[in-house]
């Protein structure tokens, strides 16, 4: 019974539910399209082709996936420590605006300027995560509520900044462009051919680096161990001497930092200046991608890329077939819905069984623990062979 086989089984099971959810979503999506007078088969074909069928599509997919990878990893990190960070959205914006300021207000050589700007984005996001974290730890206020609040505050704050102190253009609320020394080159800028027709940029490497680093941290470092254990059982971790406060706070700060880093990478690679509300929804989609990916580092990365692909496909659909891109949001929403429904179904079934027997009732507000069932399922899978 090797560990590898075990994890393979887990992945297979997970892919199965994911596949099923996607199938259901496609079905329901088809009905909606039929009602809207589109041929679903054609739409899906165009969607896939748009996303993965051409080099250009692939580059657009990459471009759209880049910020999502950051926000998905940020959500995953928080989830794993037992926190639902809905504030990824606001942290993304704040990271972007703080980084933008460092990016345009200073002049220095690229080797210093670029890292400094990225760092500023990270710190901006982390700082924005700090307040809800403290509210949770000190006052016991639910982080979902406080992070939603801080999202609103972020929106208003940025609206103010781009309209007044940081405004550069008389006509629209936007900041001055960031210095060339702080920009992340797009692939087209490096070679005229490679990545033509997209704004894909080298930020994807930073995103992938974050993925690798986070994977490593979870698996191989003391900090990662603390994050994981606190998420699995804070009662046990506390008993073992793990400092819960410090672990929660560090988890949230790094989560916010990664979100903020995503924000500034998006600016430096694609926009090069802060336009008000340049990219609403990256945070929320990151939350969803993390859920889709089973709250694991690798899973949520794959989900983020998938999500990016759907968006890229949606863009080409909009141009090519005149299908509104909101349809894609509906389909992705449906995928999530069916996956969540699967979890919900499981939850309800166990709750019902528990009610009758005194069995393992999932506790309200906690991720339901079900170690025994998992091993059990694995056992049955083993037997099936």
């Amino acid at each position, binding site marked *: 019974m090797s560990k590898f086989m075990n994890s393979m089984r887990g992945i297979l099971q997970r892919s199965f539910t994911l596949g099923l959810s996607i199938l259901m979503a496609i079905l329901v999506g088809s009905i909606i399209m039929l009602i809207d007078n589109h041929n679903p088969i054609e739409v899906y074909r165009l969607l896939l082709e748009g996303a993965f069928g051409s080099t250009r599509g692939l580059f657009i997919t990459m471009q759209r996936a880049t910020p999502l990878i950051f926000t998905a990893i940020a959500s995953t990190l928080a989830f794993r420590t037992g926190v639902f960070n809905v504030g990824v959205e606001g942290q993304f914006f704040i990271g972007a605006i703080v980084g933008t300021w460092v990016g345009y207000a200073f002049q220095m050589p690229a080797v210093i300027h670029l890292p400094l700007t990225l760092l500023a984005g990270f710190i901006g996001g982390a700082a924005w995560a700090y307040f809800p974290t403290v509210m949770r730890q000190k006052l016991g206020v639910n982080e979902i509520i406080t992070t939603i609040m801080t999202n609103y505050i972020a929106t208003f704050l940025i609206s103010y900044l781009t309209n007044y102190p940081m405004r550069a253009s008389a006509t629209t609320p936007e900041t001055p462009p960031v210095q060339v020394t702080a920009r992340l080159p797009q692939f087209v800028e490096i070679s005229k051919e490679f990545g033509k027709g997209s704004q894909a940029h080298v930020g994807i490497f930073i995103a992938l680096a974050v993925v690798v680093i986070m994977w490593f941290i979870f698996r191989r470092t003391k900090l990662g*161990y603390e994050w994981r254990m606190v998420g699995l059982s804070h009662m*046990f971790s506390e008993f073992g001497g793990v400092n819960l406060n410090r672990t929660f706070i560090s988890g949230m700060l790094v989560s916010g930092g990664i979100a903020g880093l995503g924000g500034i990478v998006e600016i430096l690679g694609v926009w090069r200046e802060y336009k008000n509300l340049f990219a609403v929804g990256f945070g929320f989609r990151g939350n969803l991608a993390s859920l889709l990916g089973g709250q694991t580092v690798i899973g949520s990365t794959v989900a983020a890329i998938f999500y990016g692909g759907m968006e890229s496909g949606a863009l080409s659909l909009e141009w090519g077939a005149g299908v509104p891109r909101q349809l894609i949001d509906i389909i992705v929403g449906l995928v999530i819905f069916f996956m969540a429904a699967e979890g919900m179904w499981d939850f309800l079934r166990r709750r019902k069984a528990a009610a009758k027997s005194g069995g393992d009732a999932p506790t309200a507000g906690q991720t339901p623990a079900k170690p*025994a069932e998992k091993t059990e399922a694995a*056992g049955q899978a083993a037997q099936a062979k």
Partner: protein
Amino acid sequence: MTNAVEMIGIRKVYPGVIANNNVNFSVATGEIHALVGENGAGKSTLMNVLFGLTRPEEGQIFINGKQVHIHKNSDAIALGIGMVHQSFKLVPSFTVTENITLGGEPRKGLLVDRKAAHDNIVEISKRFGLQVDPDARIRDLPVGVQQRVEILKALYHNADILILDEPTAVLTPQETRDLFGVIRSLVAKGKTVIFITHKFNEVMTISDRVTVMRDGKVVETKDTKDTNPTELARMMVGRDVLLRVDKAPANPKDVVLEVQDLEVLDNRNLKAVRGLSLQVRAGEILGIAGVEGNGQRELVEAIVGLRPVYSGKVVMQGKEITHASVRQRRDDGISCVPEDRYVRGVALRATLEDNLIVESYFKEPIGRGMLIDLNQVTEFSQNLIKKFDVRTPSSKVTAGALSGGNMQKVVLARELSLDPTLLIVAQPTRGLDVGSIEFVHRTIIEARDRGAAVLLVSAELEEIMSLSDRINVVYEGRIMGEVSGAEADEESLGLWMAGVGGNAEAAHEASSEHTAETLKG
């Protein structure tokens, strides 16, 4: 006479273990049938099969002579089978009534009829003598009362065949006697009871027949009157077991732990520990005897650093640690085997490796700088697993997949891996089989002989008396009196535990003398 339950050729395999291997098991209608066996022998698995919580690979089940197919839990419930689980499965934030009626609430139109539920529970608890406040929240209740709620819950769902998986593990002797009364009255009303336990005296007292399991197989089923504890132990373990511990006289050295006039609040902010003082020396075992819920839990949590101290002092080797963090105290050499094995002792969803390293991941050789050396982790874990004979297919399975006894071995292994100066053990053998109890007791005595100060908290008088070099009896958060382990007799300890004996005054004086002495010293 028909058999209420007949299980034939049951086989259940988990990854790496055959939990039930061709098991035949039958229970006559109206009997009390004890099921005993080592930790991990497969008792709970067999009952989970009967209760429809897990499906066997092979085997047939007959209920009241008719073959049945139990595919899921609700099938079993519909057949009149009820089960009280080994580990608590109650929702902590719900009230007793809510927990008992969860899912099957009596209804008035669309609304849940709380009053009816409430009255029904009061009625059942009266009828069977199980006193519970139906409106209390589970998290505020002591373990013993939570167990009572579990039993009530099964009764509430009209079970005819009642499976009790180690119900007495968490009960006080008095509560156990009460439970036996309940069981007898159930049987008198024609119900059938399957009773899992590790305590042979309970088998002898309550059961009509007893089935012994070992390594996933049934060894034998016997009429209780034709057997005795020694024989049961031999059948279970496969060798002769020492039912009593041998130990050399203690050789106490310097004071390691000193608790002075300690006051600690419980979850409801009431004083649970009320001016308690004690001392533990290196190389001795101090036993804290007492009925559960007299402040023992709060005392232990305060010493370990999980619960703030209201007033008073905790001193470790001359250094005050009253407000130190858990980690600091652990660095000072405090280890603890907690009473709540499933909540504090292990993280059920984490692997054994992750469970075993929680106190050493940040230190050499496992921790290196900011990193954790995974090879060291595996080596460290596998050593401990071997040394403490934890029965598991691998160090990478989750702790939740282990049997109760093996889980406790994991906790002990971890807590002793650091060679503690002070070892606190709370209810260390709760739910363990005789073989494991022998092992745990030997381990505790070995720790003492290596020079550790041991603070043993147990509701089990026998355990306290056989292990302790000195015994303090706690009642309502205070020490009622002290005797040496050799002089202790059940009678007087029992009186102190009940708060009787007029020794309270004397005890009080004694403890203030203690304090005065230490102040001088």
